[in-house]
Every structure is written in structure tokens, then in C-alpha cells.
């Protein structure tokens, strides 16, 4: 076996090419978790088709002792389990890398490249010899490659075993067979190849205090912790798992053990128009309610979102973005709904948008979203994406402040209503912050009012009068100014050196940008970084812009939507913003940021 690989400890990429529906996800997650438990920073990205069984699917594990979580663009070890994609997978291996394949059916002629190592392991044959049922054989093949990798890159077997025990805690019989399969691969690799490879792992202590979690689960947890009781949704990839997780957590924490009674209500709506309607109906009644969706759902909800803006009904929406336009590539990631979310609906509407940058922020910002929605009495859209939502990210453990109490905003309780001198008027702004106190149906007779999206005056009465209408929408504008003061501040990262260039970005670009900044710094290019976490833009965002001569706006869409929003909503000159765009549907690769900025830098040096 040729060995071109230079030693790369704790810094490489394993990519696994599988067939959808063969149970490989469990094996791949197991791999990633084992690395994580060895204290080594790791991330896993899943590239799966919009299909249930039979099509190609990939899983990319990046091991990075420096804690870089973005895609790096190189593949050091390819586990090629899908004959359909052999040649493509072969091409992708970086020079000096290794390709592992199932040599039950030898393919030496097809699979060969002089600059990489080819490792054939007869996974199917070994599993077929050892296991009887067809079903089990398919599954065990996956475990067998886990074993082989364990030997090749030196994953601690006891870590794997512990994971397997946890995995099958409820089906003990399976523990043994799985461990057997792992041993098959492990032993074969050890016997036939010089294990471990130079590209390998070595225990570190860098994952303590961290967890591996996906953003949808984290957001669901946020909903539970924020006290949401009503969830409504229509299934759509990649947002479905958010509601699945919410339900699961609620079954665990919100169900009476004795009576089986639930103190939550999840409604699988007939479509997205109904889902947002259910949220508005519940929120009008004072429940915290939310709906997860993706781009097409956001489009369908837009009439109702405008309604909620004008009638001032709180609502929390999660748009887990996938590739658009139109129905798009449902299993690919993008940040293409920024404008659609910010200005959803016809007429003069604008909405609070939050941009979590990782699962931890999905948790935190989903709690913030409920507080903001209640405080501002308006829809808040949490703009996540497939990469954050469905991939496992390593992040710091979530914290919870036991003193936290929901900010329900200006809600008059029945007693206060009873004490009101005059009548209750829904849209009167007593404090000048644009926010009018509301009441909850069923509370007190004096508190009743008429919610309508059609023209209403400050008293909540129907109107078609110009001045009355203008008064209401002008107040809404005032409320918008208040929103800018309440939303989460941007995350700012400053270089140690003085820098006149800045990067502005959002959401899942974060890992790529952070890595790029380090690598640029190594080349002597120093940039500051402002990760926007909310729209409207707070003054900190505009201050960041104003302090830099030149700003790179990094985002994952074709049309520079974040930059467009900055052009409309700040006074920063457009000709000082430069777009760095990545919109092919794969999680962002840090190199595109490095290259774009370096190029501009070199142009500047040359000029």
C-alpha cells in the first residue's frame, strides 16, 4: 500500500459516500461522536438527496484541532460505499489522501489514482459471512467501516463501545452484534494495513463544556424553555425536525406522568397558511406560539404575516432556509430568504428577523424571539438554514438563567383593565415607544376589542379615513425604531492590529468567516468582523460600518440580499461594500472568503 500522506494529526476531513436509506447515518454520527468524545473538535455535514431510499448521500467529517468548523474543501479520507459515485468520489480525494472502499467486489481498475492510497476492505463479504438476515447485513456493513476507520485513524475502541452501548440501551441484543461488526473492520484493517495512518487522531481536551447538536433541536429546546405552548406546522424539509424535537421534549417535560395530560398542543396543519393562522389565533389569546417552516412556506404565509404586522399580533416563525428560488433544492442550504423575511407581504410591512449563527444561538435567539414578539407585538422571524438546522455543530453548552421570566410585553391583565378609567383602546400608545398595550380575550369585559387587518384607527375601530390610517402606520414606524433598540446586538470580533477593513455577515457563514480571518491574519491581512444577529439593524451595526473604509459582506445567496438590506436601511455608502457570495447549496467553504479578500488586498497593493 502506497503511503503518500504526510502526517496530519487531528486536522483532516473524512468524507463518507453512502446510499440513502441504508442506515449509514447512524454509523457516521457514531464516528463523529467518538471523535468528539476523544476531546477533538469535530463537525459533521450531511449532504443528502431529496429522496428516501437508493440515491447517493454524503457525510463530511472535519476534524480540526483548532476548532474550525467550516468546510475546508479538501477530502483526506474518502469512504466510498456507493458504487454509483465511485469515480466522482475518487476525484474528490486530495492528493496524498486515502480512499477506502468495499473490496468484496474488487475494482482495482476503476479505482486507482497514483497520488492517493486505496484501501480495499471486503466489508460485505465479512458481514455476509458473519450475519444471517439481509437486513442486518446491510446495517452491519456500516458498522464494519466504522471499525476499519477506528483502526486507520486511531479512534479509541472503548469510546466507540460506550457510544454503541448508549445507542442500543433499549435493545441490548444489538450491542454485541454491532460491536462484532466493528471488530470485523477493525481487525481486518489492522491485519492488512499499517495502522494508524499518518492522518490520524490523538486525544485532546478541547471539547469539554461543549455539545454536538443540530440547530433545529436547539431551537425546539428554546421554544420549550421560553414557555411556548402552541406549535403549528406543515412538514417541510429542512424544518420538520424542529417540530419533531419540540414534541419529543414536550412529551418528556410537559406531560403529566399520571394522567398523561399534555400542557402543550401541537397542530399538524393542512398547509402553511393554516399553520401561521393557528399561531396568530393562539398568540392573540396570549399563548406563546410558533411555526417552523422553510422558504416556500414563508411565501405562503406572507399575507398573514402582513396582517399580523398591522393588527399587531405576536408570532414566532422559524424559516430554516433551503435553496431557492421556488421549491428549490430542499436538501441544500442557502441564505436566500433574507429580503423575503424582512419585507414579507404586500404594503408597507417590515419584520423583525433574527439570525442565529449556530445551534447555541438557535436556542438563545428562539427564547429572545418570543420575548421580542411579545414586547413588540409583531411577528419575529428566526432565519436559520439547513446547515445550522440539520447538521450537528459543536458548540458551547447551553446555559439557563433561573431568574429568567418571559417578557410578555404590555399586556393588561383583567384587574388592570377593570381599574381603567375610561374605555380600553387597543392602539393607543401611552409611552411614546410605539407600543400599545393589549388585552387577552376572555379576561375582562372592558378589555374587549376588534382585531382587524383592514383599516383601523387608534381606538381599534374600522376606518377608511386617511389621517386615522396614517396615524396608525406612523406609530408602527415608531415601534420599528423601538425594535432597533431591543434586538440582539451584533457579535463583533476585532483584530489586535488596527484594521480599516471589516467583514459583515450573518448566520451559518460564521465558521467560514472566523477561519478566514485567522488565515488572512497569518498573511498579514487584518480585518474586523461584525456578525449581524438581527434586523432592524441596531446602532452598533451602523457604527461598525461607519468605522471601516471598506466592508466585505459575506452571505450565501446570489443576489447579495444582506448587502441590499444594508443599502436600504443604513447610510453606509454602497460603493464601499463588496459582496462575497456562495450560493451553490453547500455549507460555506472558508476559502472563498480568504480568496476574495486577498485578491482585493493584492489589487490594493498593486495599485
Amino acid at each position, binding site marked *: 500500500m502506497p503511503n503518500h500522506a504526510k502526517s496530519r494529526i487531528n486536522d483532516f476531513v473524512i468524507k463518507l459516500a453512502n446510499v440513502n436509506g441504508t442506515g449509514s447515518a447512524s454509523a457516521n454520527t457514531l464516528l463523529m461522536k467518538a471523535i468528539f468524545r476523544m476531546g477533538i473538535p469535530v463537525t459533521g455535514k450531511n449532504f443528502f438527496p431529496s429522496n428516501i431510499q437508493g440515491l447517493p448521500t454524503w457525510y463530511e467529517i472535519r476534524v480540526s484541532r483548532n476548532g474550525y468548523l467550516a468546510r475546508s474543501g479538501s477530502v483526506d479520507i474518502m469512504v466510498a460505499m456507493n458504487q454509483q459515485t465511485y469515480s466522482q468520489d475518487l476525484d474528490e480525494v486530495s492528493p496524498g489522501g486515502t480512499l477506502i472502499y468495499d473490496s468484496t467486489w474488487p475494482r482495482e481498475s476503476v479505482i486507482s489514482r497514483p497520488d492517493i492510497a486505496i484501501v480495499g476492505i471486503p466489508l460485505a463479504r465479512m458481514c455476509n459471512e458473519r450475519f444471517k438476515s439481509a437486513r442486518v447485513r446491510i446495517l452491519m456493513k456500516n458498522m464494519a467501516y466504522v471499525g476499519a476507520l477506528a483502526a486507520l485513524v486511531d479512534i479509541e475502541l472503548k469510546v466507540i463501545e460506550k457510544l454503541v452501548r448508549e445507542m442500543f440501551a433499549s435493545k441490548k441484543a444489538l450491542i454485541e452484534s454491532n460491536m462484532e461488526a466493528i471488530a470485523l473492520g477493525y481487525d481486518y484493517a489492522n491485519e492488512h494495513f499499517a495502522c494508524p495512518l499518518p492522518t490520524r487522531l490523538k486525544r485532546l481536551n478541547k471539547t469539554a463544556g461543549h455539545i454536538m447538536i443540530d440547530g433545529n433541536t436547539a431551537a425546539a429546546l428554546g421554544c420549550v424553555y421560553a414557555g411556548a405552548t402552541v406549535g403549528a406546522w406543515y412538514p417541510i424539509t429542512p424544518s420538520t425536525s424542529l417540530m419533531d424535537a419540540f414534541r419529543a421534549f414536550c412529551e418528556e417535560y410537559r406531560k*403529566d406522568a399520571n394522567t398523561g395530560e399534555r400542557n402543550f398542543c401541537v397542530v399538524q396543519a393542512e398547509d402553511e397558511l*393554516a399553520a401561521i393562522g*393557528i399561531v396568530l*389565533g393562539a398568540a*392573540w389569546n396570549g399563548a406563546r406560539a410558533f411555526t417552523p417552516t422553510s422558504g416556500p412556506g414563508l411565501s405562503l404565509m406572507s399575507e398573514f404575516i402582513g396582517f399580523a404586522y398591522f393588527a399587531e399580533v405576536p408570532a414566532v416563525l422559524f424559516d430554516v432556509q433551503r435553496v431557492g428560488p421556488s421549491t428549490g433544492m430542499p436538501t441544500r442550504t442557502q441564505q436566500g430568504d433574507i429580503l423575503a423575511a424582512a419585507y414579507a407581504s404586500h404594503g408597507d410591512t417590515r419584520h423583525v428577523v433574527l439570525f442565529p449563527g449556530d445551534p447555541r444561538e438557535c436556542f438563545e435567539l428562539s427564547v429572545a424571539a418570543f420575548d421580542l414578539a411579545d414586547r413588540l407585538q409583531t411577528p419575529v422571524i428566526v432565519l436559520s438554514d439547513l446547515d445550522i438546522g440539520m447538521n450537528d455543530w459543536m458548540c458551547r453548552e447551553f446555559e439557563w438563567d433561573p431568574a429568567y421570566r418571559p417578557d410578555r410585553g404590555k399586556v393588561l391583565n383583567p384587574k388592570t383593565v377593570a381599574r381603567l378609567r375610561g374605555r380600553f383602546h387597543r392602539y393607543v400608545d401611552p409611552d411614546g415607544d410605539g407600543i400599545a398595550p393589549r388585552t387577552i*380575550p376572555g379576561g375582562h369585559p372592558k378589555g374587549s376589542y376588534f382585531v382587524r*387587518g383592514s383599516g383601523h384607527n387608534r381606538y381599534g375601530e374600522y376606518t377608511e379615513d386617511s389621517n386615522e390610517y396614517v396615524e396608525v402606520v406612523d406609530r408602527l414606524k415608531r415601534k420599528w425604531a423601538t425594535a432597533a433598540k431591543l434586538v440582539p446586538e451584533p457579535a463583533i470580533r476585532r483584530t489586535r492590529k488596527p484594521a480599516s477593513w471589516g467583514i459583515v455577515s450573518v448566520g451559518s457563514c460564521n465558521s467560514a468567516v472566523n477561519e478566514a480571518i485567522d488565515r488572512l491574519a497569518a498573511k498579514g491581512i487584518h480585518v474586523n468582523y461584525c456578525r449581524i444577529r438581527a434586523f432592524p439593524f441596531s446602532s452598533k451595526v451602523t457604527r461598525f460600518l461607519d468605522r471601516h473604509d471598506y466592508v466585505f459582506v459575506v452571505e450565501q445567496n446570489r443576489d447579495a440580499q444582506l448587502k441590499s438590506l444594508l443599502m436600504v436601511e443604513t447610510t453606509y455608502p454602497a460603493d464601499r461594500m463588496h459582496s462575497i457570495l456562495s450560493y451553490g447549496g453547500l455549507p460555506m467553504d472558508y476559502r472563498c472568503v480568504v480568496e476574495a479578500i486577498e485578491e482585493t488586498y493584492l489589487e490594493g497593493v498593486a495599485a
Partner: protein
Amino acid sequence: MTSIVKPRIVHHGLSRNRLGLTIRDYEGGMSTLCAGCGHDSVTAAIIQALFELAVPPHRVAKMSGIGCSSKTPAYFLGASHSFNAVHGRMPSIATGAAAANRELYLLGVSGDGDSLSIGLGQFAHAVRRNIDMLYIIENNGVYGLTKGQFSASADIGTAAKRGEVNEQPPIDPVQLTMALGGTFVARSFSGDKDQLVPLIKAGMRHEGFAMIDVLSPCVTFNDHEASTKSYQYTREHSHEVMHTDFVPPMPGIRVAYEEGEVVPITMHDGSRLLLRKVSDDYDPHSRGAAIEYIRTHQRKGEIVTGLLFVDESEPDMHGINSTTGMPLNELGFRSLCPGKRRLASLQRRYR
């Protein structure tokens, strides 16, 4: 500007209900519908029924979509909360309201356009979920508010009533709701207060989705000769010299008839409806028999009115969900938030 405040006259000596309220306490703003509109009669029946039921007005949430019918919640129960949703989407608002507060009385008013065209999907699924609410369709066969286009229920009357359009089979909310498994299905006529008031009361009491299809003539656009047709006619055949915006004053149509009786109703356009009131001994507990009964009389050109089907045994949305008895919007935060310690322990799964 365009909303009219109704003079509030306190009548002494008005009878009072169990709560000590008079019927005035169940009224709302002054109607801005056309004189004689069937919807106003339904409004009156709702006021009467809720007064008799002695529901505290503030415990009622009124909901509607968009249309003349959907405007009517402004004309009754002025002390109730109300939600005037976007067109066709009231059922989802109601579903959310029910989810948040299972103790609120939900009363929805919709139109045939609102429920059978743009809102058909939401309507059907609210039926299927058996949301605990009363849902009244004020059915006039037209889109009143947008000036008289035919709705999907057009042609419920006599066969030739509206010319060529009757080739498209009307969607009958009663048969549709039966087919969708509705648990309370009734039909009435706006002018028949004797029948309508008890039906509304029964619907309010029903634990689940109660649908009342109320035939409610649009005096303005159902008026064959004077308006629908001439409106069409002006547009289609004559030079458009002038706009026609004249709505002649019309009286509402009233009717009173006995159980088991069949009466013809003459509509403003001269067409006739044959209404049959189910007789005293009609048993509304069999879905099959109800469908059969409706269809049999339909073949004779009769529209059956009354409580046609009811099933009190089906669980509503909360029953199916096993939701806790206390309204979700009243649960304290402590009972909802798993807390700091649990957060720490549950995160072990993600290591």
C-alpha cells in the same frame, strides 16, 4: 368616518337573563349592510340566542374572514373580543384560539365565498379536527362584498335560477361537512328566527365543531332582474356609459313554519326555495340516514332545514391531544420551563 356609532338607548323594563344582562348587552354596532340583507337577520338571531344562553359576552370570541357576512361580528356582542381574519382563513385562527384557551366560547361567522372557495381547505380541516366552536356560514350564493360574482354554492335554489352557471354543481356545505365527518351539521334560513335561535344555542353548547349553513339572501346581488342580471348586462352588453351603483331598498324575508312542514320562500329575484323543516321525530344521530334523508329530499327540490346530524361522542382537538384541562394560556411559566438543572442533564445526550 365610515363606521357609525349606534345610539345606545337604555330601555328600562327589558327582561334580564341569568347574568342580569339585557338583550342590549348582546348587541353590537349598527349594521352597515344593505337594508334587507339576510345577514342582519342572522345577527339578530345570534344576539337573541346568546342572550338566552346567558353567556358572559367577554367569554365569547367572535371570528370571521372577509365578506359582508364576515363584517357582521361588528354588529353583535359589542363586549366580546373579535378577530376579523384575512379572507378564508378564519378556521385556522379559530384553531389557534381553541388551542390556547379551551374555555373560550368560539363563534365564527363566514360566507359561502369565504368558506367554500378560498377557505375550503381550512374549513374542511377544522371540521376534521373537530374544533370546539360554532361556525355559521351565511350562505347567499354570491360574493356580496365584491359585488355579486357567483360563489361555489351558487344555484342552491331552483334549477334554472341563474341561467348557465348552474351547470357547475354547487358545493353544499351540509353534504360536504357530512362527508368530512362533521359532528354537528345543521341548516336554516336567515328569516326563520324560530328555528335559528335554538340551533345557534345548540351549536354553542355542542362540544366540537358545530356547522350551521344559513341560507341568507343577498338582496342586492341575488336580485335577478333588477341587479345581478342588469349589473352583468350593463357590463357585458351595453356601452359602459355609466356605473350602476344603485341598490334599491328591500325588506328582509321572514318565514315561520312548523316542524315537518314544507314552505316555499320567494326570493327577491322571484325565484323560489322549497324549505323542509325536519319533523319532530327526525333522529339526527345516524350519519348514513342523514345523508340519505338530505339527498332524498334534494331530489324533490327540497332543502332540508333543522339539526340534521349530531354526534356528541367524538372528542374535539383537545380530547384527541389529551390536553390538560386548564387553558394553555393560563399555565404558569414554572410549569412550562424545565429549568436550569434539567437543561444541564439533558445536554449529556449531545455529548
